[in-house]
């Protein structure tokens, strides 16, 4: 019942109508009070909703708020004797950040190129175009991508196809005779450097192995 639609009462009302008039007035007052209370309840619910939205949005955006750097750790790829000089080998490591139910998806492959002695390049498996797994062909000295036919030279530089850039590279270091890389997040344009080499053979500076600290062993599933 909308109070605005109440008919205008005649000025000369009889007793009954006066009574009704009073009842209507009381009803009107009650209505406006209840309308006010209803608006108040809307407001209260709005506030409660907003308060509740904060943790929900926080929960939803949680994974996006961590930076890539916060989840990068030094992981060992194995002793350098696993990687013959002048060759490129597939290495795999367990991602430093995993959950107990990740299964095989927690294992990540990468390409290790040992140019000579202590000079290494470690490339991501993910094509710098759209992330498909590139494969090394030692005879033609090319990385080929199965998805859209991207090709890279042995030093990771772009050779042909849709990729606009060289392969993604992991930072690496030698710890004793252990090859370590800094890894943890999926290599994409947003997280990783790409090979910038323009020439066919790139001569990277050797890393002095003495000044490298030993990696701290860490729990793979605590996500700290």
């Amino acid at each position, binding site marked *: 019942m909308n109070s605005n639609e109440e008919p205008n009462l005649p000025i000369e009302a009889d007793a009954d109508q006066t009574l009704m008039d009073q009842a209507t007035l009381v009803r009107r007052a009650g209505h406006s009070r209840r309308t006010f209370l209803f608006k108040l309840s809307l407001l209260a619910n709005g506030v409660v909703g907003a308060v509740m939205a904060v943790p929900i949005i926080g929960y939803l*955006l949680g*994974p*996006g*708020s*961590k*930076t*890539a750097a916060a*989840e990068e750790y030094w992981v060992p790829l194995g002793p350098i004797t696993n990687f013959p000089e002048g060759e490129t080998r*597939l290495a*795999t490591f367990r*991602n430093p*950040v*995993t*959950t*107990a*139910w*990740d*299964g*095989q*998806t*927690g*294992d*990540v*492959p990468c390409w290790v190129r040992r140019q000579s002695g202590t000079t290494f390049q470690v490339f991501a*498996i*993910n094509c710098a*175009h*759209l*992330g*498909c*797994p*590139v*494969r090394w*062909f030692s*005879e*033609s*000295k*090319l990385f*080929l991508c*199965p*998805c*859209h*036919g991207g*090709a890279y*030279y042995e030093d990771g530089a772009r*050779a*042909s*196809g*849709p*990729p*606009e850039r060289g392969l993604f590279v992991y930072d690496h270091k030698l710890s004793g005779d252990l090859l370590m890389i800094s890894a*943890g*997040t*999926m290599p*994409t*344009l*947003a*997280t990783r450097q790409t090979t910038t080499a323009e020439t*066919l*053979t790139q001569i990277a500076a050797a890393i002095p192995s003495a000044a490298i600290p030993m990696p701290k062993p860490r729990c793979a599933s605590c996500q700290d």
Partner: protein
Amino acid sequence: MPGLTQTGKNIYQWFEDRLGLGKPVMEAVEHEVPESTASWWYVFGSAATVLLVMQVMTGVLLGLVYSPSAGHAWSSLEFLDHSVRLGWFLRALHGWGSDFMIAIVLIHMAQVFLFGAYKFPRELTWIVGVVSLLLTLAMAFTGQVLRFDQDSYWGLGIGASIVSRVPWIGGPLVRLMLGGPIIAGPTLTRFFALHVFIIPGLLIAMVAVHLWMVLRLGINEWPMPGRLVSKTTYTRNYQKLTRDTGIAFVPDAAWKDAIFAAAIMLAVMACAFFFGPFGPTGQPDPTIIQTAPKPDFAFLWIYAVLAYLPPSLETPMLFIAPVLGIGAMLLLPLLSPQGEKHWSRRPIAVLMVAVIAVVLGVFTHLGTYTPWSPIMDAWTSDPIPVIYLQGRTPLERQGALVLQNKQCRNCHSIGGSGGLRGPALDGVATRMTEDQIFRQVLQGGGNMPAYGNALSPPETKALVRFLSTLNNKNEPKAIDASRNLVTAAPDKTAPVGVH
């Protein structure tokens, strides 16, 4: 018997007195529609709805067994396929149902577009329909992710790589999409929530709104050339048409919908029975890199477009084209709510549908055999045809060996087998001189990598010699005309320079 009938009626009435749904439902199904709409062209929407119901049902049934854990999803699919009785058939129904649903929804859209049904007063019906199409595609993509195999894993990688290109917030967006730093357990669970709760909820709501509006506004009448839609007269004319030629939707018009829906369901069942479920392909172990990931049928065209786009156009295309395309579809009814409905007077509309269909078809076809992808094992699997080795010198035959060993055939076919990434080498000597082949091999170019580093000089020499023996039958080898001129007639040309 009459007693039994009476009891049945009483029971119905008992519920009807309390629910009160029977009457409005009967009114809705028996509402009058213009006779012209009782056509075989008007059956696609209802078929899509029936498919949606089937997808929900089979989806729930698969949910009885499926395990949305990255470590177990793949094995639970294998378990469904091999150890659960008829599990394979349910998977096949759900998979084929998805392909059929996309196809029927697209046909429905094309029909509605060509019949001008998006015009006044059904603009919002169209817009809700477009949203439903997008949700259907989202179901297909997330469903492919739940089939957690190699294609799914690397498909997520492609998705993440695309998202990572969003300016400024690419990194956080990737992590939001993956639910963590890599494709792993949390990725699968969020796609599970999307595929099983969020998107179906939205889709069912959208379809309900869509149907409600179809009932409320009446189904689009069969368009007549020259009968223009005008906001002032349309509703009156439509009501008159319904009054004059109206037939009850059920049963007079709906029997065609029912028969078509039954035929489609039968087709889904036949496909499921004869072709079986999709995948799963290899297990989602990223360290197994011997794979050529491919998206499902509905997305093959995007895969092909990504292979052919010039690199510089790629990022803009990825983010601008969808916005424009979806925006155009959403705005269409608002921009042209009135006017001609009939396809024969809307040549541009017809042309657009034809061009889009052909483009999608061509790219999808290309996507099925991916001519741009190297064939990774061609170099070890396909021999050089013997005819190309006959009558060759030892050096040339050595060159054939180089061709094989250096994996040239992963990209170049010869004798009809090998990759299609580069041109076939069968008639290469007809097209290029020896010098040109040398240059191409060593320096690359035109989408070919340079092999200067991968070939020793003797290997290069042998390879090029072999390639220069490959001219087409009855066509001479390419020659350097200027060189011939110089070497063949030094005397005659000499005086010209002396003057």
